[in-house]
């Protein structure tokens, strides 16, 4: 049901505000359609397993609490979209803005409707990420970027803590499903890990809801466009933490720890932020701190733990969303029409925009808790609840609450008076006037809601409140009545004190400001965070400097020494005891060894003469191929030989651009150290190889040898392993090859390599091509293709197969390049060899997928026999198609690599 929403929301990108509005309206309609069922007391559930083995389901629920929050999210979202349509200028990338907004809205809806704690976390992180994008929307501004980063850092860290807390809950309950978690409250509270998990969950909630001491990101998030602030910081983002506390209330609340931590944090946040709000000069800064303060009030209510306090908390969530969103929008209008948000410059705007002024005054009064408005009623409920506590608190708490109320009256008064009254403002960037008609509509709607709720709370809001509160408490509701007037009692007295004191405080503000200026700088959370981050970053740079001394050689030496130490440690229990009888080496063996050792020594000695070194490496490669022949590995011998040819060619091509000689750069001492390390490494490898070869042990060879024919349909076991038994490995390997080819093409894309008109001995390159090579290479290609086909087809039974056939074809085409030059060949062959490689990989993958169509697992092969006249009876296996894919991939990779490097040769036919 709602599961479709986030996905659908993300797609609406192209036509900006209208499309966004349509999507939000559709979400609203969907909610309205489901609402009656919820109102009847049903619990709507929807669940699809996602990652069942960790208990993560794609599960959603819609109960009273979810419905209330979803309604706030969608309802205020709609108003904000309308507002943003007028607020954003044409230069702002509207499509992107609304896409982010919808992404955020979808994530928030996910948070409030998730029925699985892990899923809730996924959406939780999504809100952090999308709010990062929204806050930093004006990416040109450093302030916006810092604000976004700060918000992401704080809420992201909280999200991690929450993840740990949720995992603990899941461990205790045995399920992440909300239904089971909420029912297991006693088990959770009784567990030893309860204090830890509570702390972790609260960290998540407090960072998100900007509770002290994590409140500091919120004011800096005010660098966002005002519609974002109106949305994120009134009804949604910051309410996510509150929502989490409410959602988990039955599971976590009711303990001493809950009361002290939640209640205490709420109280401190409420008073501290209300006090700070008074000193903000930025209109949005004032609103930001007032938001923090109001959230503190809600947290405090949740911490009190009485059912009535919970009802008041839900009620205040609704009220705060209504008046704060309208205030942010009003602030945005002021900013939009005057060009500044600085309250020291703004003044007397009521004359220019009386209509907006009226709206803002009503909303601010609601925030202050003036009677006849919604804020008054929930604040009265709050005041009444403060008396419900035991001894010293029954008078401390009401005092604190009154103090908080007093500050909120004072900053509301400041908001209204500084902006809309007083003398004519002089140096405003723009001449103020009323905003466009429809920009005011969202504010009007919200202010009317404030009024209606304030006048007739029982009528307007009580049904929704009952629904949400009963879902929150997961039990029967206590008796309560929402009314404008409960008679003259203590809460009313507290309101009167707060109103009068607040106004008095505002009048005396000048004295306070000078006092405040001294203390504020030291307490800036942003500065503390930034210096912490700077210190952490310096520490990691220092640590990195310890490990990486700034040279690859040193890192390599460290790597080798560690590997050596690990290898030696393996031999410590005792020297290896050879048990097998060694084979006789024979004359051929000694001859091969001598050739290899000489060539290796020559490579080392001659390595600065690069051409000679390449020749020596080629000799070693040949000896290794011969060793493969001798050691019963014909497929390897063929592969090694062909790769050797191509590698040497590649090295020669590269040498065209590189110095022909390496100068002697390293000192004698360094050479000696290197030689010593090399000797140790070589000796270690030799001992290890010797011990391994003569150690007793069974290998898997029996299975493969026995199953090759009956299971894979081929006699060449190596090839059957490659294309059948371990075909998934092979698929992975040709994919890696393909990636390497693409990397080669990408790295060499559009680089400047100096061509060399002369060779290193100062002679010009020979102008013409070798006639002999040109003539001989032509008939070679069809012959090589024939051989490739033969090798490919016979690979299942005799040495050959896709890898070898591919290398033969690649070599043959290379000879064409050598004989005829780039232009001649590329006029006759497709220039995009990478496509050939991609085609090969795709063919291999599709062959594997085809087996799925027959109900067999991926890459299952099948084979049969075919009688072909003249040729005779031969076997056809589906694995051969796979091998064809391997063949194409290898051809494509070899040619794209060599052709790409070859094309760098600007001098004609120099390759």
């Amino acid at each position, binding site marked *: 049901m709602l599961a479709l929403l986030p996905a659908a929301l993300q797609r609406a990108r192209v036509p900006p505000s209208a499309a966004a509005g349509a999507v939000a309206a559709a979400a609203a309609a969907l909610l309205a359609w489901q609402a009656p069922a919820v109102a009847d007391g049903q619990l709507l559930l929807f669940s699809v397993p996602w990652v069942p083995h960790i208990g993560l389901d794609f599960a959603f629920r819609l109960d009273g609490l979810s419905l209330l929050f979803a309604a706030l999210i969608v309802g205020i979202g709609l108003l904000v979209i309308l507002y943003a349509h007028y607020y954003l200028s044409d230069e702002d990338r509207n499509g992107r803005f609304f896409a982010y907004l919808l992404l955020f809205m979808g994530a928030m809806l996910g948070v409030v409707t998730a029925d699985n704690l892990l899923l809730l976390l996924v959406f939780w992180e999504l809100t952090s990420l999308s709010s990062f994008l929204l806050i930093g929307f004006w990416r040109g501004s450093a302030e916006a970027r810092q604000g976004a980063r700060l918000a992401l850092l704080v809420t992201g860290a909280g999200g991690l803590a929450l993840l740990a807390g949720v995992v603990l809950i899941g461990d205790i309950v045995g399920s992440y499903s909300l239904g089971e978690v909420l029912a297991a409250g006693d088990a959770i509270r009784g567990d030893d890990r309860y204090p830890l998990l509570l702390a972790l969950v609260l960290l998540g909630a407090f960072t998100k809801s900007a509770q002290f001491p994590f409140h500091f990101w919120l004011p800096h998030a005010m660098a966002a466009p005002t519609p974002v602030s109106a949305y994120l910081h009134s009804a949604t983002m910051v309410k996510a933490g509150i929502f989490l506390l409410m959602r988990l209330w039955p599971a976590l609340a009711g303990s001493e720890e809950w009361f002290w931590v939640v209640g205490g944090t709420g109280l401190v946040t409420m008073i501290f932020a209300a006090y700070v709000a008074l000193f903000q000069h930025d209109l949005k800064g004032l609103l930001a701190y007032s938001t923090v303060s109001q959230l503190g009030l809600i947290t405090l209510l949740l911490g009190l733990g009485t059912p009535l306090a919970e009802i008041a908390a839900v009620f205040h969530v609704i009220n705060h969303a209504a008046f704060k969103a309208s205030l942010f929008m009003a602030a945005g209008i002021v900013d939009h029409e005057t060009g500044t948000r600085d309250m020291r410059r703004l003044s007397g705007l009521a004359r220019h925009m009386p209509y907006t002024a009226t709206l803002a005054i009503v909303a601010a009064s609601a925030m202050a808790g003036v009677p006849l408005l919604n804020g008054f009623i929930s604040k009265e409920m709050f005041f009444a609840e403060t008396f419900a506590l035991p001894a010293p608190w029954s008078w401390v708490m009401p005092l604190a609450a009154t103090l908080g109320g007093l500050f909120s009256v004072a900053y509301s008064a400041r908001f209204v008076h500084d902006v809309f009254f007083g003398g004519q403002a002089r140096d405003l960037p723009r001449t103020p006037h009323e905003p466009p008609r429809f920009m005011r509509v969202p504010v009007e709607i919200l202010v009317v809601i404030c009024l209606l709720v304030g006048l007739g709370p029982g009528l307007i809001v009580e049904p929704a409140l009952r629904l949400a509160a009963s879902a929150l408490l997961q039990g029967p509701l206590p008796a309560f009545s929402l009314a404008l007037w409960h008679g003259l009692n203590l809460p009313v007295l507290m309101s009167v004190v707060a109103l009068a004191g607040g106004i008095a405080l505002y009048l005396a503000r000048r004295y306070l400001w000078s006092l405040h200026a001294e203390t504020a700088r030291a307490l800036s959370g942003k500065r503390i965070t930034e210096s912490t981050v700077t210190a952490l970053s310096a520490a990691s740079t220092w640590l990195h400097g310890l490990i990486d001394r700034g040279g690859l050689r040193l890192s390599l030496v460290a790597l080798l020494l560690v590997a050596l130490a690990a290898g030696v440690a393996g031999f410590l229990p005792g020297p290896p005891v050879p048990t097998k009888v060694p084979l006789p080496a024979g004359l051929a*063996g000694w001859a091969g060894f001598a050739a290899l050792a000489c060539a290796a020594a020559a490579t080392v000695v001659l390595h600065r003469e690069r051409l000679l070194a390449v020749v020596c490496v080629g000799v070693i490669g040949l000896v290794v191929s011969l060793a493969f022949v001798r050691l019963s590995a*014909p497929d390897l011998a063929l592969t090694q030989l062909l790769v050797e040819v*191509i590698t040497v060619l590649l090295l020669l091509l590269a040498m065209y651009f590189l110095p022909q000689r390496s100068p002697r750069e390293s000192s004698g001492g360094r050479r000696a150290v*290197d030689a010593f390390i090399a000797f140790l490494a070589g000796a270690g490898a030799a001992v290890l190889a010797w011990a*391994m070869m003569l150690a007793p042990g069974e290998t898997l060879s029996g299975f493969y040898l026995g199953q090759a024919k009956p299971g894979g349909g081929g006699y060449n076991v190596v090839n059957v392993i*490659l294309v059948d038994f371990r075909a998934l490995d092979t698929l992975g390997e040709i994919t890696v090859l393909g990636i390497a080819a693409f990397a080669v093409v990408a790295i060499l894309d559009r680089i400047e390599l100096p061509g060399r008109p002369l060779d290193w001995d100062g002679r010009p390159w020979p102008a013409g091509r070798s006639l002999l090579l040109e003539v001989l290479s032509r008939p070679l290609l069809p012959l090589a293709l024939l051989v490739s086909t033969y090798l490919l087809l016979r690979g299942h039974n005799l040495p050959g197969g896709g890898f070898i056939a591919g290398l033969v074809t690649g070599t043959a085409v290379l000879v064409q390049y050598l004989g005829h030059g780039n232009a001649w060949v590329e006029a006759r062959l497709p220039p995009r060899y990478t496509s050939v490689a991609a085609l090969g990989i795709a063919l291999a993958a599709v062959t594997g997928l085809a087996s799925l169509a027959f109900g067999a697992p991926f890459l299952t092969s099948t084979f049969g026999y075919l009688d072909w006249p003249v040729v005779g009876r031969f076997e056809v296996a589906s694995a051969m198609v796979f091998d064809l894919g391997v063949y194409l991939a290898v051809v494509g990779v070899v040619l794209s690599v060599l052709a790409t490097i070859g094309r760098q040769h600007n001098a004609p036919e120099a390759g």
Partner: protein
Amino acid sequence: MEGLVAVAIGVLVAAGVYLALRPRLFSVLLGITLLSYAVNLFLLAAGGLVVDAAPLTDRPGPYPDPLPQALVLTAIVISFGMTALVIVLTLRAMSERGHDRVDDGPDGGPA
């Protein structure tokens, strides 16, 4: 035979490591090539040595262990891909920095 192969692997590793520690990318490239020979031989040897036979089951045994052979076959082709990549990186470094030293500092040492 085993001892000979073991020493051959050791020689290749020693030469490869020494070259890989040189200050020029081209030498490193040669070193990596030698190291991959050594590793391939080592992998093949992991199945035990069998002389003058083939992993073809339509012929009479004994057979060598086919699994290391299959592993080495792909390893050879992959090491070609890797060599190609290192060559191209060398060229790119040459194009952007004008030399093919491993480290940026004077004498090929740390910057």
